């Protein structure tokens, strides 16, 4: 089923320092669980079985308690992800502004459906619930980058830029630069 667990998995260097700072900052070890999972996922792209074991030991909780949190929250991942995970909002406000045709276009361009990854592992598309950008819909998020007011042409430009490995400047990148 799965590969043998790497008993030597650990956080090191800056990541370990961040982890130790988080554990010191939160009032109990268990309360440091969510930020710790983020540190691991930020480094590895997902949280592997070995990381779950390591974290459970560090925070002195059972592996089940780590896994129940990971599975409850949509954003934690336990498998490697596509290079670009395109999260398209399909909730009400974006829907009113035309999310459905935009999603159809995206599916057609990538040749995969919502929830699937392209065979080369480059793109995945996910339908997500409300990204809190309702006045700017339809919208799509890739990591910390939010693309607003989507049209078919804009989708094409975004995909093309990502294929080149130089993602188009997102509408929220103003905030990232400042």
């Amino acid at each position, binding site marked *: 089923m799965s590969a043998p667990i790497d008993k030597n998995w650990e956080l090191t260097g800056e990541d370990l320092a961040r982890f130790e700072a988080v554990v010191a900052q939160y009032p109990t070890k268990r309360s440091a669980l969510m930020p710790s999972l983020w540190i691991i996922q930020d480094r590895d792209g997902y949280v592997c079985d070995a990381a779950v074991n390591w974290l459970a030991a560090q925070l002195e909780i059972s592996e089940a308690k780590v896994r129940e949190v990971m599975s409850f929250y949509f954003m934690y991942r336990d498998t490697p992800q596509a290079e670009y995970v395109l999260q398209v909002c399909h909730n009400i406000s974006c829907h009113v502004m035309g999310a459905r045709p935009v999603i159809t276009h995206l599916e057609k361009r990538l040749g995969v459906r919502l929830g699937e990854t392209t065979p080369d592992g480059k793109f995945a598309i996910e339908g997500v619930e409300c990204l809190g950008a309702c006045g700017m819909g339809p919208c799509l998020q890739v990591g910390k980058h939010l693309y607003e007011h989507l049209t078919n042409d804009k989708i094409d430009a975004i995909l093309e830029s990502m294929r080149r490995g130089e993602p188009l400047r997102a509408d929220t990148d103003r905030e*990232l630069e400042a």
Partner: protein
Amino acid sequence: MSHEQYKILSRRFGRADAHNLAAYEADGGYAALRKSFEMGREAVTEEVKNAGLRGRGGAGFPTGVKWGFVPKDAETVYFMVNADESEPGTFKDRYLIDYDPHLVLEGSIISSYAVRAELCVIYIRGEFGWLIDRMQAAVDEAYAKGYLGKDILGSGYALEVIVHKGAGAYICGEETGLINSVTGRKGQPSIKPPFPAVQGFLDKPTIVNNVESVAAVPHIVTNGAAVYREHGTEKSAGTKLFSVSGPVRNPGVHEIPLGLPFREFFHEWLGGMADGEELKAVIVGGSSVPILTADEAMNINLDYESCAEAGTMLGSGGMIIVPGRCDMVELIQVLMHFYWDESCGQCTPCREGTGWLHRLVRKLRRGEGTLADLDLIEKVCSGMAGLTICPLSDAAVMPMRSFLQKFRPEFEALVQVQDDTGSPSRWAREIRS
């Protein structure tokens, strides 16, 4: 027409340097914090009570009164800022954190001081990646300047702030769900009582306030309750941010005096519908509140009481403008999918009920529904409302019931009509294809 005089929370929106500490201080920032220490915590709480500030996350509970629930003899108190903004249609807090993180932070420090908290957790939804960086940068600046940490501004008051990143769960916007999430658990709500103000995070008294509520506190402290009350109505005091989506000329975040007639807001602030669109319905305060028809909306004022009288809620101010071209059954299907997806699974009426509603609406849209299914929707709703730990179940029922009641002909048009051959009606088959 200018609406500048109403810009209290939003007056710094849109400025490129608004988020920097130096710019915030140049605009008089952190003076309210100094004044709070001079006034003392009781006087601050009293001022917020007198201002009539009500929780801006949706419930509308008086903020100062909530603070007053913390037991006076409590040794450890926690304060949490709810920036889990996930109610569909709501995107106001995102602007506050984006343009004015120091306003949010100053309000958080004053509020923490008022309730004697030693730790303040600012819980931001995980999808707001760049805003989490923005808030953390503000917190770092504030520590460096002595607005946080031990002995803040020589007052003897000490406060630590943690910016906590959520990970994608609508239910964490409910205050007990949020507290459980920070504890390192699934974000499932807890039964109240005990209320968090008495027994919350790690079983200690905990106050959870919405971002917009805490952002109003510095203004109240600086100018006093009377000035705050210059806008709004007797029971719905002050200004409120409305985040407006849908095909109007000016969507986005607008700050308005509570009590403003919707008709005026719609025409003079939103500029009416975009070209070629007509108004069909309005969801006033986020996707969970009962929908209003265009006629109903045109006759309400935007305050807590008027909305309640009209059978809806002001909620979070996440206003969704529904145009004439929208298929209401399709819209409610989108919403029912959302609540089904986000139900935390703890209470049976919600876990099963949201799934039933989602599947029944889907069945109608596939042209496979019958008139009995419309009755069944009502029956399922009756088995969900008011029967669960938290309001998510009701949040699904309120739009479902109101959509069905007010736009019933659209639902009935999808119902299968048995013809002589027993096959579905032509209408239903067209929809399905």
